[in-house]
């Protein structure tokens, strides 16, 4: 049997299948259903699952009910209020402990106090830069963590792992030693003009936390390209992470994004003043 005959045979089989398929209503319905299942599956993996993917390895509500057995309703309410107060105190304690831990390190670190709208850069426990936050946006994903989970999440300082920015961390200028005094006179033309470019940066910390700092002032028109590539890069990073996870049949790790708005001067001083892998103490409530 030669190749053309085999091909013809295969083609006939495919043709027959298509003909059968096109005239079988149940087959078409199943195919349509399966086809539309793809976005639904992706939606579940990429959106629904991360939104509800808190690790519920904590006791469930039944524990409270057991502990409150025999108490009247008022007492139960009082106890639950007290429990809530204690949780808040524990969260406060964790935040202060983190500040203390970070003060032992030599380089600068961040102290972010969301209830007071303050971002401090500190060295050895001394605030060297205090920034008033003019706008704060916190991802709503934090809602799916209860207080014990929040406490676990913030129990140790966060550590920066990478960052992305519209400005360089340091602007080094390399200068070759002049051969004589006349060449030196040409080289020493004076200091570089102050950098006035817009400052937007994001620091990726461990435990899925990302802090984005944006300047309050409107950027210049001519900076559109730089800002565009910055936005593209940070969104691209999220997309590629989501895509990789979905292709692997997994839910992407939920990112907790906190977006802060400060003055341009503060944003620049903080970005330039922070080390490559900064520490962070976070107060959420």
């Amino acid at each position, binding site marked *: 049997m030669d190749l053309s005959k085999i091909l013809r045979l295969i083609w006939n089989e495919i043709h027959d299948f298509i003909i059968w398929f096109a005239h079988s209503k149940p087959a078409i319905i199943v195919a349509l259903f399966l086809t539309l299942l793809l*976005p639904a599956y992706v939606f579940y993996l990429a959106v629904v699952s991360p939104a509800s993917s808190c690790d519920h390895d904590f006791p469930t509500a039944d524990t409270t009910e057991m502990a409150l057995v025999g108490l009247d309703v008022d007492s139960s309410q009082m106890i639950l209020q007290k429990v809530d107060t204690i949780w808040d105190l524990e969260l406060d304690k964790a935040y202060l402990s983190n500040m203390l831990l970070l003060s032992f390190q030599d380089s600068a670190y961040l102290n972010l106090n969301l209830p007071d709208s303050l971002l401090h850069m500190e060295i050895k426990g001394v605030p060297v830069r205090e920034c008033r936050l003019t706008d704060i946006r916190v991802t709503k994903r934090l809602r799916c963590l209860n207080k014990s989970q929040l406490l676990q999440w913030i129990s140790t300082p966060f550590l920066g792992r990478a960052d992305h920015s519209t400005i360089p961390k340091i602007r080094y200028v390399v200068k070759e030693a002049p051969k004589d005094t006349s060449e030196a006179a040409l080289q020493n033309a004076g200091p570089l003009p102050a950098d006035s470019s817009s400052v937007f940066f994001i620091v990726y910390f461990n435990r899925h936390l990302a802090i984005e700092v944006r300047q309050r002032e409107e950027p210049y028109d001519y900076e559109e390209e730089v800002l565009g590539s910055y936005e593209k890069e940070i969104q691209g990073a999220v997309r590629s992470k989501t895509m990789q996870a979905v292709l692997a049949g997994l839910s992407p790790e939920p990112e907790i994004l906190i977006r802060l708005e400060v003055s341009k001067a503060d944003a620049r001083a903080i970005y330039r003043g922070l080390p490559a892998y900064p520490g962070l103490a976070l107060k959420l409530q």
Partner: protein
Amino acid sequence: MKEHLTTTYSQQRKPIWYIILILLALAFSVLLALIVVRRAGSIGEVVVRFVPLPEDPSLLNRVPVNELSAYQISIKKDIAVIQKKLHNLIPQQPYLIVNTTHNTFKLMQRDQLIREGMCSTGSYTILTKGDNKKWVFETPRGMLKVRSKQVNPVWVRPDWAFIEEGLPVPSPRHPSRYEYGTLGQYKLELKDGYLIHGTLYKRFLGMAVTHGCIRLGDDDLKAVYTTLKTGSNVFIY
């Protein structure tokens, strides 16, 4: 039978539309999936609104109901202890904060500002000579201490000061190395030759022009010199 079916179906001219429908559905489906991946973050933010707030009962597992008040008091005590430790981190003596990004300084006493103004810090220049000699002119960051203080200091010019000007490097004790008045009236030594001193180039205050030292204007230098003691902290960021 097969031939009969083929003829009949072909006459009806329907199959192609079903196939196109399936292909369109597939394309739509892939497109929708891509949009979901692209917008997963923002869609997720909407979805999260519908996730019920979690209950928070686990504390009662650790602490019995009758011990809650005592536990609350003990946490408050712990917090007070940590707050005291944090408070003690602020130096008792006056200290200096230097911002190398904007070239400004703040002279502080506890949390009170004594004086602020402009300074000059490291220029972030890398000076190279040949293949093996390199100097990086940047101000060190972190917490430094004032090691010594001196009135009317003399500047002993290091090798780079000659190389930068295209001059031959003299011997270590050559008279051309000693310059009087260049550092201003006072100097405070921080570490490894890094100083806080005055400047002849006052127009450069507020700019990054130095070789790593911190330059101040005359009045500011005097205030810093008289306020800071040997051992005082200088925080540079």
